[in-house]
């Protein structure tokens, strides 16, 4: 099907196949359509139908509350039945050379390990390698659960043959119940990506500040791996704040210790515990890491005071945590183009 999208600045054209979500079809055609969650909640991908016929795969999507007229729809949930003309209100550019154009791929779950009682480390082996930027995420669909879910990559390699994720259980959630209650290794999955704008590349030449709550740490680990591979912390500071409720909910502490030993004292990793004071054992078990009590945004705000010179901040986690962190960074007068995040909803 031929799709024309009229944007604020110009028209673009792309092809959509049977059953392919319009957002995914446009993005894989290198058309930089607006999106954020890719999964029907944020409303960022809203568009208006001018001509043609579309079908909404998820008419109950929460993101539909941002729609006004009957002719508006979410591109990440709708598929075209015929050639169609649609309209989006923002500027849309063709993706620049050098950015990783997303594509639909197949893969299978090659391993699934519990890190804590409600966090799983998942690996998906891809049928063909994927190039992505540190900090990006992909959409994954598993058999028997409706819709795609966004998960941030933990690993970073060029031409990655497998992707690793950290997934936190959401009680009652579709994928959560499936992942935590079934034998999922070996299962074939569909992957679409890479997506996301909160990316890190060594040419940035800025100190980096990573503030993450819970599974939000995934993308930060990818960013830190990429930076470490480039010896980035010889020249620039890296401050990482990882928020969890209690020490029992924390994971990857060995990996952080190793990174810290490898990168030297320009890299600082602080674990913020919101529901307990750091037990003495934590300090002796992980001498390279710092521990503090409080919400991760408050802890980061305290430690970073006066240290915002030449800083690029990466945030990830539940929306209230991201909002609270943005507030602190704006108060510290960090410019908005140095505040990067893809909200988890």
């Amino acid at each position, binding site marked *: 099907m031929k799709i024309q999208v009229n944007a604020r600045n110009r*028209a673009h054209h792309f092809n959509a196949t049977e059953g392919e979500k319009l957002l995914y079809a446009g993005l894989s055609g290198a058309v930089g359509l607006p999106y954020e969650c890719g999964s029907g909640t944020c409303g*960022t991908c809203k568009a208006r139908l001018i001509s043609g016929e579309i079908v909404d795969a998820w008419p109950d999507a929460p993101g539909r509350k941002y729609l006004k007229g009957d002719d508006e729809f979410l591109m990440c949930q709708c598929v075209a039945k015929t050639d169609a003309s649609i309209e989006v209100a923002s500027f849309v550019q063709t993706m620049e050379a050098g950015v990783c154009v997303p594509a639909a791929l197949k893969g299978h779950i090659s391993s699934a390990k519990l890190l804590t009682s409600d966090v799983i480390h998942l690996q998906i082996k891809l049928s063909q390698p994927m190039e992505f930027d540190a900090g990006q995420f992909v959409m994954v669909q598993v058999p028997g659960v409706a819709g795609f879910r966004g998960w941030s990559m933990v690993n970073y390699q060029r031409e990655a043959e497998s992707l690793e994720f950290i997934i936190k259980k959401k009680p009652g959630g579709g994928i959560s119940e499936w992942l935590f209650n079934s034998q999922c290794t070996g299962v074939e999955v569909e992957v679409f990506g890479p997506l996301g704008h909160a990316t890190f590349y060594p040419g940035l030449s800025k100190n980096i500040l990573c503030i993450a709550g819970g599974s939000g740490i995934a993308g930060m680990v990818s960013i830190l791996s990429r930076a470490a591979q480039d010896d980035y912390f010889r020249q620039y500071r890296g401050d990482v704040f990882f928020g969890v409720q209690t020490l029992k909910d924390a994971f990857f502490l060995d990996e952080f210790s190793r990174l810290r030993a490898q990168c030297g004292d320009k890299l600082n990793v602080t674990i913020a515990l919101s529901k307990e004071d750091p037990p003495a054992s934590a300090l002796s078990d992980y001498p390279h890491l710092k521990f503090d009590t409080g919400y991760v945004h408050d802890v980061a705000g305290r430690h970073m005071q006066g240290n915002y010179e030449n800083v690029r901040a990466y945030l990830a986690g539940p929306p209230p945590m991201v909002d609270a962190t943005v507030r602190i960074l704006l108060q510290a007068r960090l410019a*908005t183009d140095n505040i990067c995040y893809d909200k988890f909803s």
Partner: protein
Amino acid sequence: MSKIRICNTAEIPSNGMKDYDVEGGLKVLIANAGDCYYAYQGVCPHQEVCLAEGYYDGAVLTCHQHLWQWDITTGKALGLAEAPLEKYEVKVEDGEIFVLQSSALKAAQLFMDVSGDTLQRLDSLARREKYESGSTLYNIGDPTDDLYILDSGRVEFLIGRDGTSPAGFVLHKGEVFGWAALLENQARRIAKATCLEDSVLLRLNGEETLKVLESDPASGYLVMRKLSTLITRHLGSQGEK
């Protein structure tokens, strides 16, 4: 010009903000900065998000969704923002805040920077016209007499020899089209403009507009600068970069 009571000054925290729903479904944001009060559209021009839920430090307003920012004294876009905020004139009388709904020209980005006097003169040139869905505003080859500003509704542009290929861009409230009326050696329209919905437009005669701008070169310069940016954007959009 209508005058609407919004609230009591005591309701607005110092260097803070609050939003109000006024008659006709309009949401208005009132912000305090020192001794001054400002009034803006209450909903983010990006998506349907209430600006009062965002961040404001007494100088810069930030929408919490995607961090668009505006200067609170002017409503001009800062940082990542792609559009300015619509500003309303504020009157404070005996501790009560009123908002004056003024000319729609004020919302036109092209005229955002012109002086108050010049805006008033342009305002008197502007004709407010309603068009039904499907009406043609101008055709390819028509004389380029008027400049248009979209107040409400939707307008589509068709180009090509027979005027049937959509030019494929979308106009927002306050955007200007038909600007060939301000250019030299552009006597004929090169696109056909039709209304896709019932629309309200402001029309200004090109020559008269130029006369007003010539009499206030400082404002005229700022308008021409905006216009050249606008034209460059359209040139840039013809093909791939």
